[in-house]
């Protein structure tokens, strides 16, 4: 399948050279035929004459035959030379841009850099780049027949074709949905963490409260956090201000969430971009809708929110106290095990999780609304010791939510239980700032597996992975270059043997 033409000027040796060659052959053949015909006509006229005129007939006849014979031989020889020169340049250019392309792809692959659209969640090898002068869309801005390191747009503007010439500073958009992308979406390691759970379980409050504390923690660890997109920065600011006023976040209505992108830049220049997702709880009321949650195909970890008041056993236990605060508590409408079951079915159907297989990524099971009644004591709210996980797990089992525990521990190899209060109290409309508790630890633990700054200091596999992936990138790029050099060397050696050089 041929690629659609790019709005750029293509190298002469890839198309125009052969068009010119064909035109040259066609025209020289036409001119030769016309010349031969003319000479044969003159020979015919001369033959009708007397004496010396007949000699002219011989002259023109011989000239006509020579034009055809020598002309054909000449254009065959010249065309061969012409093609040889064109091919030599074509191979040279092809070789040069293949070398750079393989090195670039190998480096990106090894470093784990890839592009994911925050809107449609498509994983793209290459976005669409726009010319800053004429806004023409370049769908394959890579080293190619349009240019090895730079290409010339049809407007005359020169555009870089590789990331190491700052190609990613050009304006770009997702090739699938057209959403505008930012520089941070390209050359960075990424961590994809959705907050899952049914409706009204407290996902948005958890995510924004945890994010606020995560930004502070990142700063304290020498990282510079920033929002990749203005719109998510504005959304974070708006929700944070509402939480400061004592207003809980509005209900999420988008079943397909827009990723909350936060870039964490280290002093070394290394960047990690967090993709945090807050899908509406309604997304988990049916399995079919989960196919659209494409980010599940490359998850770094999962935060699963469990509303204890969705469990009949808990509501029964607190029956006498729950009445006056039921509107503030807003128990979730669907059981956590149903949401979880649909999540696993979605992963099996759409994202390659084998039936019965266990996911290795970290899964934080977070029991929300742990500020209500005597739950802070029972769920060890605010106690960040490892033993809290067992306490929360035991509480879930006691509340007849053992199905969730069993389901998670059967399908996930790395599970830890947490409790949190995303708001710090049951919403009461008092207008006092919420004081979230226990929100940072689950997110920090999940991110620890993919962001070295948040890794558990007692085990530093992520740091090791980072170093390993850098080395792998260099090795892959090197292998690509060596492969091309080996193929070229082999071809030249074979040619030399063929020509007895």
């Amino acid at each position: 399948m041929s690629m659609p033409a790019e709005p750029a000027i293509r190298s002469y040796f890839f198309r125009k050279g052969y068009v010119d060659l064909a035109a040259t052959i066609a025209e020289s053949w036409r001119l030769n035929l016309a010349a031969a015909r003319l000479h044969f006509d003159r020979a015919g006229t001369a033959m009708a004459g007397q004496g010396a005129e007949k000699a002219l007939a011989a002259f023109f006849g011989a000239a006509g035959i020579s034009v055809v014979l020598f002309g054909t031989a000449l254009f065959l020889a010249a065309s061969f030379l012409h093609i040889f020169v064109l091919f030599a340049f074509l191979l040279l250019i092809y070789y040069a841009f293949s070398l750079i392309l393989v090195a670039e792809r190998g480096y990106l692959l090894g470093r784990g850099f890839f592009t994911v659209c925050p809107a449609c969640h498509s994983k793209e090898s290459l976005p669409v780049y726009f010319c800053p002068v004429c806004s023409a869309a370049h769908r394959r801005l890579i080293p190619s027949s349009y240019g090895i390191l730079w290409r010339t747009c049809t407007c005359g503007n020169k555009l870089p074709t590789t990331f190491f010439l700052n190609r990613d500073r050009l304006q770009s958009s997702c090739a699938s949905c057209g959403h505008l992308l930012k520089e941070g979406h390209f050359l960075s390691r990424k961590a994809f963490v959705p907050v899952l759970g049914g409706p009204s379980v407290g996902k948005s409050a958890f995510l924004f409260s945890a994010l606020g504390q995560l930004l502070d923690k990142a700063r304290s660890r020498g990282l510079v956090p920033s929002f990749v997109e203005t719109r998510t920065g504005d959304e974070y600011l708006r929700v944070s201000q509402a939480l400061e006023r004592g207003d809980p976040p509005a209900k999420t209505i988008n079943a397909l969430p827009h990723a909350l992108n936060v870039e964490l830049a280290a002093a070394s220049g290394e960047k990690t971009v967090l993709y945090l997702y807050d899908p509406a709880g309604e997304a988990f009321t049916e399995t079919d809708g989960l196919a659209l949650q494409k980010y599940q195909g490359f998850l770094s970890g999962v935060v699963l929110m469990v509303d204890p008041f969705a469990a009949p056993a808990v509501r029964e236990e607190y029956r006498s106290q729950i009445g006056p605060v039921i509107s503030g508590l807003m128990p979730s409408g669907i059981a956590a095990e149903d949401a979880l079951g649909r999540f696993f079915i979605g992963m099996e159907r759409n994202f390659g999780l084998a039936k019965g297989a266990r996911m290795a990524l970290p899964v934080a099971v977070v029991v929300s609304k742990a500020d209500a009644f005597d739950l802070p004591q029972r769920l060890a709210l605010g106690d960040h010791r490892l033993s809290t996980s067992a306490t929360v797990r035991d509480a879930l089992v006691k509340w007849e939510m053992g199905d969730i525990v069993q389901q998670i521990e059967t399908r996930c190899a790395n599970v830890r239980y947490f409790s949190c209060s995303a708001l710090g109290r049951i919403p009461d409309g008092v207008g006092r700032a919420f004081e979230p508790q226990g929100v940072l630890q689950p997110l920090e633990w999940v991110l620890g597996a993919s962001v070295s700054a948040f890794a558990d200091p007692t085990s530093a596999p992520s740091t090791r992975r980072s170093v390993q992936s850098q080395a792998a990138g260099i090795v892959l790029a090197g292998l690509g270059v060596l492969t091309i050099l080996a193929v070229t060397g082999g071809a030249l050696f074979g040619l030399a043997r063929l020509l007895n050089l």
Partner: protein
Amino acid sequence: MDEVFQVVLMISAVIAAVIAVVMAIAIALMAVMTIGAVYGAGVALWNYGNAFYRNVRPERVAP
């Protein structure tokens, strides 16, 4: 005997002259044809050069 010899000599001379004329004509014809062939080759070369000059523009072009 002398007369016979003279007749034979004349006939030989005539034949030699005819052969010489025919050879001269053949050589002249070959020379003319050779010049014509060279001229024709020159025309072919000129035609190719002309076609090359008019059609080959080694420049990068927009699609």
